[in-house]
């Protein structure tokens, strides 16, 4: 097989970009905006764009106060069929996890090093499996775990989403491969909207993005068979959120 060289790739790139430049010589009319959008601001390229802040009043509500946001989060998670436990402190969170492990007869819980995760494991009545940022990735070891316990970057009230990252939430597989995903989070991790979550990412990781950031919105699901909803297609069948505070 003839290998495609860097020169071939550069040639393809140059040709595609040339076609684009040629195509864009005739401008396309800007979409007409209804009464809603504020005056578009002008971007670097001289074309108008909408500031995201301007779109915010039209999107689903994220709550104007922390109490409103919390109520929305709980409502959205319930609709998504996620299970939420509110606990006062980490000791109570540990009890909560142990109770779940006993009730569901877990043999093995997978976890990652994190100040919110570690205190929960002390009394857990089953085996534990730590995913290790240093070493090689033990896929088989993780695959046989019943549950994966992770921290999160933030919770989004507007959509009931949980944002996890590969840097602080145990990599890519921990939150998707085990049959149950347990998230441990504190109330101050709650943000109202997706736009706030993006602002948080930008602030936390400017120039050093985690290789994966995932908004998890409820347990894995599919409607592929006759459009009938089934939970637990390939990812976790159950999503449990332990909310501290």
């Amino acid at each position, binding site marked *: 097989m003839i290998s495609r060289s860097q020169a071939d790739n550069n040639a393809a790139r140059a040709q*595609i970009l040339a076609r*684009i430049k*040629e195509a864009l010589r005739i401008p396309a009319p800007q979409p007409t905006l209804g009464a809603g959008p504020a005056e578009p601001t002008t971007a670097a390229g001289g074309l108008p764009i909408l500031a*995201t802040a301007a779109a915010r009043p039209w999107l*689903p509500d994220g709550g104007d106060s922390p109490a409103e946001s919390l109520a929305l989060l709980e409502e959205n998670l319930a609709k998504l069929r996620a299970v939420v436990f509110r606990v006062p402190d980490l000791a109570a969170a540990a009890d909560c996890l142990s109770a779940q492990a006993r009730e569901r007869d877990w043999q093995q819980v997978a976890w990652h090093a994190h100040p919110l995760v570690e205190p929960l494991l002390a009394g857990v009545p089953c085996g534990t499996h730590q995913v290790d940022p240093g070493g090689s990735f033990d896929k088989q070891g993780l695959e046989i775990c019943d549950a994966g316990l992770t921290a999160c970057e933030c919770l989004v009230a507007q*959509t009931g989403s949980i944002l996890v990252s590969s840097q602080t939430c145990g990599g890519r597989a921990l939150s998707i491969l085990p049959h149950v995903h347990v998230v441990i989070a504190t109330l101050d991790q709650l943000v109202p909207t997706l736009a706030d979550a993006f602002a948080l990412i930008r602030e936390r990781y400017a120039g050093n993005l985690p290789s*994966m950031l995932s*908004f998890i919105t409820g347990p894995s699901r599919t*409607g592929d*068979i006759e459009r009938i909803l089934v939970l637990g297609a390939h990812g976790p069948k159950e999503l449990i959120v332990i909310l501290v505070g």
Partner: protein
Amino acid sequence: MTTVSKPAPAAAASAKQQFLHDAAEHVRDTGHRDFIRRALGGYYTSRDLQQARFRNWEHARDAASLAKWSAVNRLDELLPQFTTRFEANGGRVHWARDAEEARQIVLELLAAAKAKAVIKSKCMTTEEIHLNQAMEATGFSVVESDLGEFIQQLRGEPPYHFVFPCMHVRREEISDLFGKHLGTPPTDSPEELTMIARRHMRRLYVDADVGITGANFLIAETGQISITENEGNARLTAALPRIQIAIAGIEKVIERLDDLAVLLPMLATAGAGQPMTCYNTLYAGPRAAGECDGPEEMHLVLLDNSRTALLADAEQRDALHCIRCGACLNVCPIFKNVGGFTYGTTYQGPIGSVITPHLRGLAEWNHLSEASSLCGACTDVCPVRIDIHHHLLHNRRNAARTSPSRIERLGHRLFAAVANRPWAFAAGGWAFRKTLWLAKLLRPPPLSAWLATRDLPPAPARSFRSAWRSRQR
């Protein structure tokens, strides 16, 4: 009731003849039509419910369409910006001018990786370039991990609908299919069937050395790719194999991360009536230092494949704003009657009828723009406000310009001559009223084609103009 499956290809001489043949077959099949309507019933309800959660859906559509417009009209600036950032994060971008080049790139990556098993998550761009066939012909085994795509792969059919790939398949057929290929006992429970696929697939994720995914958005600001899915199969495909290859059309680029705050909820609501799709994941590159897992290499194939030809048509350029939510298919009276396979295209429904002539040639695919009632339902529901039904008219006009039909032109000239002379118009009307019964009886062509599926009303006793005059008195 017949079982709907992809009709044998090349049964007809042209794409148009095939379309007419398949459309007739499917329209006759009332069982198929009822099944599709029933399957879509739940979608309408949940879509309306989620749309109502937007404080102003129409204004949100404005914001979404402007975000896509400003990106598509600055592709020359945003694509290099995206590429630079993606490669700075450790990924590698491969540019493909056409389908053949894209296939070649992927096959070479697989060969270099000495890949034994490939797992794939849902990606319409790979359907467009017929990647699976190319991989299999070269000896790589590939498994579709999305449940609907997996079912279609076992059936040996392309997707029926680009968002709901097997929505035409009944649970009994899936049970039989799994029994035949996986040796599982029969069941009529969608849940059981889903669990069969789940159990079957888990080992394959672990064993695969290469994972192939699509991409819904490419974010120029950060160099990330965004993948939207419900099942978690794309997450697994991008987590467990050693190498990740993503394939995306060049029009997928957006400028900022913040644009997703509008686009992700709109895609979920318009596409499947959800507040957010279950997993919306941003990938910046391969496994980074200090991370537990993830692929060692990440590649992105950027595909043109005639998208620049559509870009060059300023009038229809907004068709590249499409985020592939499938909302236009779900409301289209044509789609609901002729079904997804009849189109004979990778992208079915109204948006497919608009873009396919640009991707594959207007002369051969213009008939798709005739397969429209021009009701505009597609345009009404499009979350990024693509003027879909007018673009169908634009395609008709362009086709008439490039290869005018002599018969049509003659007909129009004749009509203009008559309509411009009141006496001729009156005489013509009189003649029509008097001879309509005869036409119904004799059914001469081309009237016979019209009458094959329709009735003619009885001729009115007098002309509209005469009725109008008596009203004025």
